[in-house]
């Protein structure tokens, strides 16, 4: 017993050096050569950091493409999903209200054209992406607010759609909105 305890103590110390000091340092050293020295890729507009490429942000203004609902209102220091069950009546009421509100802001859109992902919360609450159909459905609204042609917006969406070999098609909402601000 005593012998086991001595070995345990010493082995734990050695392993702490190996696994908690050397290992993370190797990874940090390798990651140092990635963007922002391994501290997350930033998006910079006019020399100012406006966000992180992977971290979704809140867009409520009608002139911007909006991302998915977030259970934490896009607070990136406390990620969470809604954890609402599929049969929860309160939850279904919330979704229903989101649909109504979407229709108020997008008067020309019919219910059946609204993709569910635009009215359901993401897993992390920080989903940076939407699918192309969720972007296209917002085109008439943005075109009328910004006085742009729908055709131009559709081209912008297509240019920002990321096609993976196997992954679902997706658009980074922040990048899309930055490009939208540049559109004249």
């Amino acid at each position, binding site marked *: *017993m005593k012998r*086991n*305890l001595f*070995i*345990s*103590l*010493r*082995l*734990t110390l050695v*392993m*702490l050096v190996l*696994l*908690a000091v050397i*290992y*993370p340092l190797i*990874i*940090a050293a390798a*990651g*140092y050569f*990635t963007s922002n*020295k*391994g*501290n*997350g*890729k930033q998006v910079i507009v006019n020399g*100012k950091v*406006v*966000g*992180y490429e*992977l971290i*979704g*942000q809140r867009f409520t203004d009608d002139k911007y493409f909006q991302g998915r609902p977030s259970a934490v209102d896009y607070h*990136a*220091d*406390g*990620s969470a*999903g*809604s*954890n*609402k069950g*599929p*049969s929860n009546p309160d939850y*279904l009421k919330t*979704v229903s209200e989101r649909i109504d509100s979407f229709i108020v802001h997008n008067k020309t859109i019919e*219910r*059946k054209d*609204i*993709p*569910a*992902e635009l*009215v*359901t919360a*993401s*897993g*992390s609450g*920080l989903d940076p*992406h939407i699918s192309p*159909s969720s972007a296209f459905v917002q085109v008439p609204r943005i075109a009328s607010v910004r006085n742009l042609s729908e055709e131009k917006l559709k081209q912008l969406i297509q240019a920002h759609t990321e096609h993976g070999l196997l*992954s*679902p098609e997706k658009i980074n909402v922040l990048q899309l909105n930055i490009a939208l601000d540049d559109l004249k």
Partner: protein
Amino acid sequence: MNEQITGIILIFLSAILLAYPLGKYFAGVFSGTGISSIMLPLEGLIYKISGIDPAKEMDWKSFLKAMLTINMLWFIYAFFMLIFQGYLPFNPDGNAGQSPDLAFNTAISFLVNCDLQHYSGESGVTYLTQIFVLCFLQFVSAATGIAALVAVFKALKEKTTSTLGNFWVLFTRAITRILLPISIITAILLAYNGTPSGFEGKDTITTLQGDSVSVSRGPVAAMVAIKHLGTNGGGWFGTNSAHPFENPNYFTAAIELIAQMIIPIAMIFALGFYLGKRKLSMVIFGVMTTGLLLLLIPTIVSELNGNPAIEKLGIAQPSGAMEGKEVRFGSGLSAYWSIVTTIISTGSVNSMHDSSMPLSGLMQLLGMMVNAFYGGCGVGILNYFIYIIIAVFISGLMVGRTPEFMGHKVEAREIKIVALVTLLSSILIKGFTAYAAFLVTHDPDNGWVVPPSLWLNNPGAHGFTEILYEFTSANANNGSGFEGLGDNNFFWNITTGISLLLGRFLPIIAPVAIAGLLAKKKYIPESPGTLRVDSVTFGAMTFGIILIINALSFFPALALGPLTEYFSLDLK
């Protein structure tokens, strides 16, 4: 829709293709031969500093004593570090120490390879405890499981022996030759796909729309690698691998899925190579894969079809049920992940299981209840071993012979141990679930810090499933959760802490003890009357045993939870 299915098949096949050669490599690691011997100098140094005599063989009792002693030490270390983390350095976000009951739960949970997290990574721990406690425990708990499995392998290999190898040596080798090298590769791949690896704390930015937002960061890549490879599952951030920093894109999702599958699958092949019984390992692999498919297919179908209640609201669900899921993964890959992570006791999530469709929730629960379709790092096969012993016993009774397993008689003492372990999980899960459900319904205003009326995030059958899921996950050492459950309070921290301890150590102690007892018995050479455990018939028998035991144990509870919700949702 089709490319979602193709993606799943490709990821599954890649895992198997990588696991096969890895299994051969593992067999070399355990017998101390092959290329991995280049680690000998490093290991020699570790033995020397720690005062370990690598040549000393241990019997099953001293093997377990060594294992339990060091585990106890890790628990005490982790418990005090988590309590005092607020006063310790390397805490850029200024997070506070954990309450004693939360520290008790967190320390046990990571010690036992479960990683039930009743805190959120962004605010509940510091960089110091993430790396020096949690990430450290992720390595050593996985290595403990692997060492215990190898002891059982060794007992099965020898005709008659009283020794099972040296715990310290097997443990060290599992780290230096398996977990550390593969973790380094995995972590670097993640870092180059966008997962942070640097040590900077929270960043405050002004968004395009003008909001001020704090963004949590940290050396995430190092932890995400071992969290999957060691089938631990505890993530850096609150939402685990749904968080875009922990899992930036489809490719990283594939890496993380493969990382959690390869060691459990490679262990099955290693068994074949190490014992020279490849047919046995193929039969085991076949049974486990059948189990996977049976749970997986209904889950994928129900997630891709979307939520019928949302369909009634008249909107389109082109990408399936998206509540709690991320666009970059889609509902298909998320469904696949939810099954992989529950059959293999990882418990990392890339979608919120609480928002899964009822049928998916049912399959996730079943995966954890069986806990042996591939199963956790090392412990998966140990759990399967228990089912095998029961199958041997019942087959023996059916043909009227004394049951034998690999040339050793299986007698009353072994069967008693097996029965105890099998009954235990059923008692722990259902007992605690019943107690919690009673408190919610009959004592909702109990004056605890968080009264039971506030525990559940969903009403009705789904709320019951939240309770059932939590205790099943704790007992299976899985670590995923229906996270709507308000589980950071005294009741949940202590009850799941007890489940975790018993659910981990008894299922490790039992197979090692049985293997030790069997190996000491006289070897009986094979004869025409011997029950062949490497036949497809015996594989089917084992599958039947798994099905019957779990159906008898859990069907009533499942009927009250996910099944009720499924029928109410479809018929509404």
